């Protein structure tokens, strides 16, 4: 009976987490309505709460991270899963999984002391204000999610039965052709799930982003296609919520609600991504 109770407890924890965020965030919805999502300005002293600039920051950082990490991660997974003999493969995979465990605060530290300066120097021709940019945060998160993508994509590739490869090799296809025509199509759902889980992580990543993103409010870009805002400071949902404003806000129920709602937005984004990944994993081993 205790087992059931524990399962319910875990469910209740998740439910109450969601409930608390919804409930505590209500006043902000009442005050700002949809403007909470569509508004670009956030001035808490004037009680203006618009989060679009932060949503932009979160999406921009995650996209930069994915653009960097996905091709390299999948390429590397192809190498480990398809081309490397078992022993080196195991070595690479184990090392990479160890590195997947490096705490984000350590990545943040590396970002603050190395990456920030490198980005600043590399961007000198574009005259940036500092090395704290959305791009810096995106690169840092990209490095952070690289091991996740590599490891999960490797799992997905290894999930394709060896006989399928043998049959295709037996027809005279070379290694790359087998990968393209047999392995990748079958591993695709698992690989996409890997990318989605990594995306979920990058959307919610706070510590590392916080340290290098510049935390500049109200940085809505003039053009969404422009890359210019990427090389200036910005703010993400998580870096805002993790900052000192959270401590200030408690006590002022409207301001607090606006802060908590940042978490709710984040939760909604991550949940959608997780649900998609879970659907794709349906046919996988857990089914």
């Amino acid at each position, binding site marked *: 009976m205790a087992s059931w109770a524990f*399962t319910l407890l875990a469910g209740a924890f998740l439910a109450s987490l969601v409930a608390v965020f919804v409930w505590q965030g209500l006043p902000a919805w009442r005050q700002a309505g949809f403007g909470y999502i569509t508004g670009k300005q956030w001035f808490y002293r004037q009680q203006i709460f618009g989060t679009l600039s932060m949503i932009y920051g979160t999406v921009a950082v995650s996209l930069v991270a994915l653009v960097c990490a996905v091709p390299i991660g999948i390429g590397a997974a192809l190498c480990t899963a398809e081309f490397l003999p078992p022993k080196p493969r195991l070595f690479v995979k184990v090392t990479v999984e160890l590195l997947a465990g490096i705490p984000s605060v350590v990545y943040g530290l590396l970002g603050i002391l190395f990456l920030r300066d490198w980005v600043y120097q590399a961007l000198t021709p574009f005259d940036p204000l500092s090395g704290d940019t959305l791009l810096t945060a995106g690169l840092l998160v990209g490095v952070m999610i690289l091991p996740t993508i590599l490891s999960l994509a490797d799992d997905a590739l290894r999930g394709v039965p060896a006989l399928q490869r043998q049959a295709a090799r037996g027809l005279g296809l070379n290694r790359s052709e087998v990968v393209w025509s047999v392995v990748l199509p079958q591993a695709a759902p698992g690989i996409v799930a890997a990318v989605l889980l990594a995306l979920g992580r990058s959307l919610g990543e706070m510590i590392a982003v916080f340290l290098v993103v510049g935390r500049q409010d109200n940085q809505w870009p003039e053009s969404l296609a422009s890359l210019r805002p990427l090389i200036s400071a910005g703010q993400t949902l998580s870096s805002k919520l993790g900052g000192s404003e959270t401590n200030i806000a408690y006590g002022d129920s409207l301001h607090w609600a606006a802060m908590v709602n940042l978490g709710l937005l984040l939760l909604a984004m991550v949940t959608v991504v997780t649900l998609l990944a879970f659907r794709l994993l349906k046919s996988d081993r857990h089914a």
Partner: protein
Amino acid sequence: MRKARNIAFQTLAALCAAASFGVLALILAAILFRGLPAVSWRFLTEQIRLVGADGGIFFNLVGTLILMVTALLVSSPLAIGIALTHSIYLQSAILRRRILLLLYLLNGVPSLLFGIFGFILFVKYLGWGKSWLSGGILLGMMILPTVTIALVERIASLPRAYTEAAAGLGLTAAQTIWSVILPQSLGGLVTGSLLGLARAAGETAPIMFTATIFAGAHLPDGIKESPVLSLPYHIFILAQDSFDPSVGAKVWGTAVVLLALVCGLSLIALPLRLRIHEEARNG
């Protein structure tokens, strides 16, 4: 043409692997290079002094260990309960999948939100203030999916013959669980817990609002208003004003200690994990 494409593709993949491996090795090397000189016996056993510019990280280490043990105590019973419900009691595939979904969703919740939730529930609503216990509970809930899924996979890889043999001996379901399933799947619990703790040890976001402060805490002597120091929060604060060289050395030293803790835990889990992997492949 086909050959050229084959070679080009394999080279590209190898370059990707080399790049990933290289970046990650570089990171490790940079941390060790910067941090190792700062690590010494004194560093590990002394208290923090001069706002982190001098002294050691003894109570940070202790605080992180307290949080980890609490997280372990919170997550283990829950993980066992959920894994048993999932793998043994539930017969319906749909309900099993619901539980799995619950775990995935919990796993997806950004760690910062655990912190905010804990701040509302424990710090404010229950009035604990900053307390090691709320940090431990939050970290425990955060690693729950990792632990449970490792355990579920381990139970799934047990040969069916075990449970059938036990049933054949006339054991009740409860006896089967206690005498056959749990001892046999202990490895999964240990592996999952080690991996989970490796993650918990390095998390900053769940504890920064709920359990940890930068300086001035020793051993907790209760629940209310009894925060602890911790390694990741120490790094997080020092990183923001790390231009003072003496602080710089200390922060890298702390990073090395945290990294050793985290990698140590995953390394201990490694042999067990590889064995379970093999069994899952062959079984």
